């Protein structure tokens, strides 16, 4: 379809439907091998971009008029070219922006998706998870708690990569230490009043000392028969308690300013043939799971959007519009922040 020869103001839904039909017929006429090549490209695209498609689909549901008018068609960038059998622009513009859409009036819009996450925190959280998993694996299946005084045990791990060759010694030493603490429980002063005891001197247990900061023993107030040896702060929630909501606001501010001025988007319109380029910053499950909450009693998503808008101060840089999208199932919310 050549837009220059069309009067877009007279375009109807039937015209769009007809255009789609034409496209399908054109694709159907391709040689079989060429069609299979398209199927294979679609498979690759689909695997690579599974994350972006649902985000934009939900955003569109939450904010159908984000472009100021309804959207007639859209796709993630590779699918945009593959499905229509169009030649993509030269690299790197063949992969930018993440989503391409066309409005009912024919305006071609590009949308770049950016996640509001602190990647350093995610990497750190995953690393801790890995360490904890390995230590729990070394302990293996936990036997019934036959101690006399200990209800459950909290481990506090060091930030040290676990060497699987230490697994047997780790298991042997943790149970030896528990036995020792249990036997000496009544010798500690005020033992009846104490709800727990900490043990950070692990010099007699070198493998435990290598991997643990301390071990906390909770008194046996009620039975804990299963998995009674655990981590005090299971990742990633441990990290959540170590950062304030301000950390996430700083992350948002940095993401907005860095992206706004990122020169990769400078000539995007020209190279891809777009009329407008938007930025969609989304808060998704990854951020929810691995990052501290951005919310506080007097600061919700609406306030986050106002904050983001004040950060931009009317300057979207290379973007014509910027949106903030809360992408958690059942809590989707979108704000135009520029």
């Amino acid at each position, binding site marked *: 379809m050549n837009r220059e020869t069309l009067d877009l103001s007279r375009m109807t839904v039937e015209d769009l439907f007809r255009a789609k039909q034409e*496209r*399908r*017929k054109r*694709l*159907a006429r*391709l040689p*079989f*091998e060429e*069609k*299979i090549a*398209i*199927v*294979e490209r*679609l*498979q690759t695209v*689909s695997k690579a971009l599974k994350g972006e498609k649902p985000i934009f689909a939900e955003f569109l549901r939450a904010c159908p008029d984000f472009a100021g008018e309804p959207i007639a068609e859209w796709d993630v960038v590779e699918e945009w070219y593959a499905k229509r059998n169009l030649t993509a622009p030269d690299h790197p513009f063949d992969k930018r922006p993440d989503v391409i859409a066309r409005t009912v009036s024919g305006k071609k819009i590009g949308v770049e998706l950016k996640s509001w996450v602190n990647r350093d925190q995610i990497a750190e959280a995953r690393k801790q998870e890995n360490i904890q998993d390995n230590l729990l694996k070394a302990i293996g299946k936990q036997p019934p708690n036959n101690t006399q005084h200990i209800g459950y045990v909290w481990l506090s791990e060091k930030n040290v990569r676990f060497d699987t060759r230490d697994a047997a010694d780790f298991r042997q030493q943790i149970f030896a230490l528990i036995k020792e603490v249990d036997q000496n429980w009544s010798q500690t002063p005020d033992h009846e009043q104490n709800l727990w005891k900490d043990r950070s001197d692990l010099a007699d247990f070198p493998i435990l000392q290598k991997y643990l900061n301390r071990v906390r023993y909770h008194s046996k107030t009620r039975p804990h028969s299963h998995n009674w040896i655990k981590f005090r702060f299971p990742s990633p929630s441990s990290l959540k308690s170590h950062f304030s909501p301000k950390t996430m606001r700083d992350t948002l501010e940095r993401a907005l300013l860095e992206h706004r001025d990122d020169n990769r988007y400078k000539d995007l319109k020209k190279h891809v043939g777009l009329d407008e380029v938007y930025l969609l910053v989304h808060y998704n499950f990854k951020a929810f799971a691995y990052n501290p909450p951005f919310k506080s009693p007097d600061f919700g998503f609406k306030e986050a959007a106002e904050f983001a808008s004040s950060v931009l101060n009317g300057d979207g840089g290379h973007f014509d519009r910027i949106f903030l999208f809360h992408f958690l199932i059942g809590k989707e919310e979108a704000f135009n922040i520029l």
Partner: protein
Amino acid sequence: MEKVIQVLNRMQADGVVEKYAIGGGIAFVRYLEPYETDDIDVFISPVTVGQMGLVSLEPIYTYLKNLGYEAVKEGVVVEGWLVQFVPAFNSLQEEAVEKAHRVPFGKEYTYLFSAEHLAAELLRSGRPHDHARTVALVESDQMEMKAFREIINRHGLAKIWKKFVIRFELEEHE
């Protein structure tokens, strides 16, 4: 997909299957526009019957395993494609395999259901997306409607087709 075809042809040459033909989504793509799919439905005929009198895919799975292709719940993954082997269990499917088109693909040849057999099989199968594909095929210029009608009459689908034409408001009222 060429590598998958190579494997199928080798399997046939080695006598593991006598005849095969690709139906389903990949056959559909031959006649209409491409869409995303990662499985290949391979219909085989005649069917091998095991010791208990049940249809057996065992020789195929063993053969492919020896070539390094692992079976999964729904089929066998061959060169990144999920290949599902479907024993032809009715006269329509048997005929679809028997009369499949020999189609060049790269340096190989493969066998694909004709548009008419594909539409008839989709009509028989009757799942919602199969119906949508039947409509698309019938409305395309890829079908020989006379041959299609003969197929559905021959395999007892005439009544279903009559209802289908009315339900989907096809122009083919008889």
